[in-house]
């Protein structure tokens, strides 16, 4: 190789190193000197001899643990062909927090350790930032949970008081109560029950994120049938379960809660004495299932379709629910990595019906084995 070729090669190598944010380094075991790219100079300052620094200077720049680690490596060096990959924590340096050294020991003709050195400061700092953010978030979640517990507990006591007082009035008035007084007392009771349920649901909603999901094998068809029984539809209502008997691995409790809330919602807001509900499930791309809960109720006007998922949102005003059911559905689905939306139902031409749709990622998906 001519001098010119060698210079060319060196230039390309330096360019590649610069682009990759890497520096070469070389520790000569016999002389105890370390030489290398700009990072070595940036880290250690003015050289001790020519372009080289004493290795001790590097050791004094490291924290106790990683300093000992490097010292041990240097002690081991002459003995065998060592492969080194260490992250060293730098102390006492404003711009550099950590470096990574990846190298090999060679004896040519005296023992050396040579390789590349990378500045890990940025990675470390962003990791720390991320850890800090995660800790902040966890603290905020804990506070929210505590707050909700206090709110629902402390608000429930006076609420129970109101409930008791209404029943005292009813008992004490006895026959003296006019039909109008009784009617007002009934309304008062219903308001109390509703608020009590809102407080319960608020707590459930906040706890969605905290629930540790247990992954189980679920037969989707069987789940649909079971849900029909759980929801307990009154006479006149039918539930059609249009689900293939596939077995999937998923958080059964979460999926079941979401479907139950949707069925509850469809039935509660139905405006007729009879009706048809349907649960539909279809594979949706890889490892995903798309569910639809379809009803033939009064439907939901397009412009309100996003708002119904907001907490405490009840289109019916003094509706039958707490207004938390669909908010819960959205939160639970999104926590699984799915999406929820509303489509027209099959009766849309007649201005009726709505389909609540959501996607649900599965852990594994396969046909039943028997």
């Amino acid at each position: 190789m001519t001098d010119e070729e060698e210079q060319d090669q060196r230039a390309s190598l330096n360019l590649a190193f610069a682009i990759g944010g890497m520096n070469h380094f070389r520790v000569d075991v016999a002389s105890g000197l370390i030489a290398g790219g700009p990072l070595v100079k940036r880290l250690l300052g003015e050289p001790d001899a020519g372009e080289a620094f004493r290795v001790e200077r590097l050791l004094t720049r490291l924290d106790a643990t990683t300093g000992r680690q490097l010292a041990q490596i240097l002690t081991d060096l002459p003995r065998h062909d060592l492969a080194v990959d260490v992250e060293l924590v730098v102390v006492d340096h404003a711009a550099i927090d950590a470096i990574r050294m990846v190298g090999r020991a060679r004896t040519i003709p005296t023992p050396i350790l040579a390789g590349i050195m990378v500045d890990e400061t940025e990675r470390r700092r962003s990791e720390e930032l991320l850890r800090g953010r995660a800790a902040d978030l966890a603290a905020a979640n804990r506070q929210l949970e505590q707050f909700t517990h206090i709110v629902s507990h402390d608000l429930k006591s006076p609420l129970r008081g109101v409930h008791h007082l209404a029943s005292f009035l009813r008992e004490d008035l006895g026959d003296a109560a006019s039909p109008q007084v009784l009617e007002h007392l009934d309304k008062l009771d219903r308001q109390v029950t509703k608020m009590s349920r809102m407080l319960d649901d608020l707590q459930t909603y906040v706890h969605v994120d905290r629930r540790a999901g247990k992954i189980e094998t679920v037969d989707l068809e069987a789940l649909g049938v079971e849900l029909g029984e759980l929801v307990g539809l009154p006479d006149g209502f039918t539930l059609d379960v249009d689900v293939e008997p596939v077995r999937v691995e998923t958080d059964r409790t979460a999926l079941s809660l979401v479907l139950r809330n949707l069925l509850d919602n469809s039935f509660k807001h139905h405006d007729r004495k009879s009706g048809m509900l349907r649960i539909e499930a279809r594979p949706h791309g890889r490892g995903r299932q798309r569910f639809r809960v379809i009803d033939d109720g009064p439907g939901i006007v397009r412009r309100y379709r996003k708002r119904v998922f907001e907490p405490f949102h009840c289109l019916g005003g003094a509706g039958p629910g707490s207004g938390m059911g669909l908010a819960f559905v959205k939160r639970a689905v999104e926590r699984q990595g799915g999406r929820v939306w509303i489509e027209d139902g099959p009766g849309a031409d007649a201005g009726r019906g709505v389909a609540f749709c959501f996607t649900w990622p599965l852990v594994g998906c396969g046909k039943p084995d028997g």
Partner: protein
Amino acid sequence: MADGPGTHILLVDDDEIDVIALTRAFAEVGIDVPLIIARDGEEALGALLERGLDAVLMLLDLNMPRMGGFELLERRASDPRLGAAAVLVMTTSSRRQDIERAHALGIVGYVVKATRPGFSRDFAELVRRYLALASLPRAGGRTR
């Protein structure tokens, strides 16, 4: 003052209306055991230590100002003079850790106060039947 022998109910609850509701419900289901009311753990301790109560069914709320239910249960575990009471917890807390902690402190039951029609009566019925069927511990370890 000594309330003397016989069974007593010691109702420990700071919620005035809950106390009225239970008092009414006890009358409704025909409980004729004398009822002593304490508004927190300290009043309950006073009643147990100073009034010379014999056999006591304590109905204990957990969240109260000053000495709460758990503190009272812990004091009871370390003071034999307070042991002569069967404790039935009635509280708004449905938290799993509260239920387990209370049971670990030796209670006979844990009931979550509900806001629904008929709850007070159901609870009073439970107390009536408990008093009719269960054997309560006696102060000083005497059994009769």
